[in-house]
């Protein structure tokens, strides 16, 4: 048997794959965070709450309306995106001209309200959400048993990440977005409705978080707290990747997911801090982050 670092290569491959799956969630979340930050200069502390709302929206759609997973995959992000739009319209936009810290504090408050409310109505132990029928079960890859749903998560997140990247880097709308990041007033004077663009961007970011949430629902317990600790890890990922960079957010998300996965094998006790350690190291060497431009 071939061994790597003292464990069989099969197990090693299995762990790599597992890491990639976690990385899928990290990538989707940090992507949304990066988009919102890039455009609005707001650190969206409510991102974890929106992720949780995505999962809950899926669960509620199922229990109240009998909407299945596939439709929830579309509706949950849309619903959460809409709530994001409302928040942006009525609150966030008043903060753009202020210090960015106020955006952070506002969304922090928002996260508390949302999580608190869900906890009030749904308790803290969570809600069941089953894996969709055709994605349940698994395949034996030889080196591991891969639940089909997890394979789907990796594929779907790659599609979403690449799709978003293309949207922003290759389309006209994306060009508006990028230009508006640099000089919103000028873009507006070209006849582009930048306030609307900002609103939609926040909606998109929130929707991406929700999409990650609904995709997580069959794997992780749907609970009001599911996003609150995750968000801190995602923050660290974004710092490592470099705040402004979309590609940086995606790549770092996957990479750190894998790294964390490997830590769980070699030194499990450290798996929750490995990302923070990496962050500290990156700050020492490249304060702007791996993909960030120097300020």
């Amino acid at each position, binding site marked *: 048997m071939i061994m790597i670092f003292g464990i069989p290569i099969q197990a090693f491959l299995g762990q790599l794959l597992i890491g990639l799956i976690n990385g899928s969630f990290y990538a989707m979340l940090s992507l949304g965070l990066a988009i919102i930050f890039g455009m609005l200069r707001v*650190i969206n502390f409510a991102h974890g709450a929106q992720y949780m709302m995505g999962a809950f929206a899926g669960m509620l759609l199922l229990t109240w309306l009998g909407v299945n997973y596939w439709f929830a995959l579309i509706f949950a992000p849309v619903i959460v995106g809409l709530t994001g739009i409302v928040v942006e319209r009525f*609150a966030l936009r*008043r*903060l753009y001209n*202020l*210090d*960015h*810290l*106020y955006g*952070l*504090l*506002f969304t*922090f*408050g*928002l*996260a*508390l*309200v*949302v*999580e*608190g*409310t869900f*906890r*009030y109505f749904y308790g803290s132990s969570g809600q069941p959400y089953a894996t969709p029928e055709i994605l349940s079960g698994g395949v034996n890859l030889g080196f591991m048993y891969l639940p089909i749903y997890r394979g789907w998560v990796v594929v779907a997140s790659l599609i979403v990440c690449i799709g978003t990247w293309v949207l922003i880097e290759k389309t006209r709308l994306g060009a508006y977005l990028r230009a508006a990041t640099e000089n919103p007033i000028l873009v507006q004077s070209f006849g582009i409705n930048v306030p609307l663009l900002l609103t939609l961007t926040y909606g998109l970011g929130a929707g991406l978080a929700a999409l990650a949430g609904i995709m997580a629902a069959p794997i992780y317990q749907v609970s009001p707290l599911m996003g609150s600790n995750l968000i*801190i890890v995602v*923050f*660290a990922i*974004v*710092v490592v990747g470099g*705040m402004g960079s979309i590609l940086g957010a995606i790549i770092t998300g996957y990479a750190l997911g894998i790294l964390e996965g490997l830590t769980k094998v070699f030194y499990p*006790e450290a798996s*929750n*801090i490995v990302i*923070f*350690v990496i*962050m*500290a190291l990156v*700050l*020492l060497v490249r*304060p702007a982050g791996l993909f960030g431009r120097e*300020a």
Partner: protein
Amino acid sequence: MNTSTITSTDTNNTGTRIQLALLAVAFIALLVAPFVFYPIFLMKVLCFALFACAFNLLLGYTGLLSFGHAAFFGGASYFTGYVVKELGFPPELGILVGVAGAALLGLVMGFFAIRRQGIYFAMVTLALAQMFYFFCLQAEFTHGEDGLQGVPRGHLFGFIDLNEPLNMYFFVLGVFVIGIFAIWRIVHSPFGMILKSIRENEDRAISLGYSVNRYKLGAFVMSAALAGLAGGTKTLVFQFATLTDVAWQMSGEVILMTLLGGIGTIFGPIFGAGFVVTLQNYLAASSFPVTVLTGLIFMICVLVFRRGIIGEFNASRLGARLGLRTKQ
């Protein structure tokens, strides 16, 4: 940071006199308070008020938003608790150990964090504090989620029995007054002047020869040490140190207190702390979820009330008459 700046130098004389009078009234009120209010509650308010003021030293006067101050507050509370309970240190020495520990922690965290500014700084401090949280969770001496229980209050200077609630109260009040005075002194010192100028125009300060990172680190460590003073004292008040004090929610709470009271005002955080602690106590007995209300207050503050209670008051007409209005 779009914060109001400190009590300006051009306050008129009547203003100053009235301010001094207010200060005297406040002090007398604190002296008689334990005969009216519940002492343990007052002590808690004082500890949190000191914590918020320490935090505000960093945010309000240096413009750095730390999202990891719980590490210093909670860290100190463990350090103090440990040396007092396990090593039998007297209370005053225990608190000093807490302060020193928090300062050391501040030095390490600050070393990494001051490399970034603005929101990055906030995120980095948050992440570092989270690491410290995990450390506390796993370290033996903190006793995990049981917490460090039954920390004796002991005898101050060997002869004042702190188990006597009033003695304890006046001890805490003393610590509080010393802490606030220290903050006031730092803010109104040559060093404070440099901090202010760094906040105003960092590049210019560099070009005048100031190594701004060292000043920022200095402010960070001072703020951490004072937060530690609050944390260590709190351990003696409650006689335990637990994980809640190092959790990131605590960092959020102290921000709320400061924001609510008024960033960059000396007395704002005190009011903010009083308000939040009262609220938590009050809400404990109601069925309204606490976090929801906390979050709502946060949102409202940020949207319509950015100057906080004291900040708004200072900016009001009455505040102006008292010479409290400062330039924005």
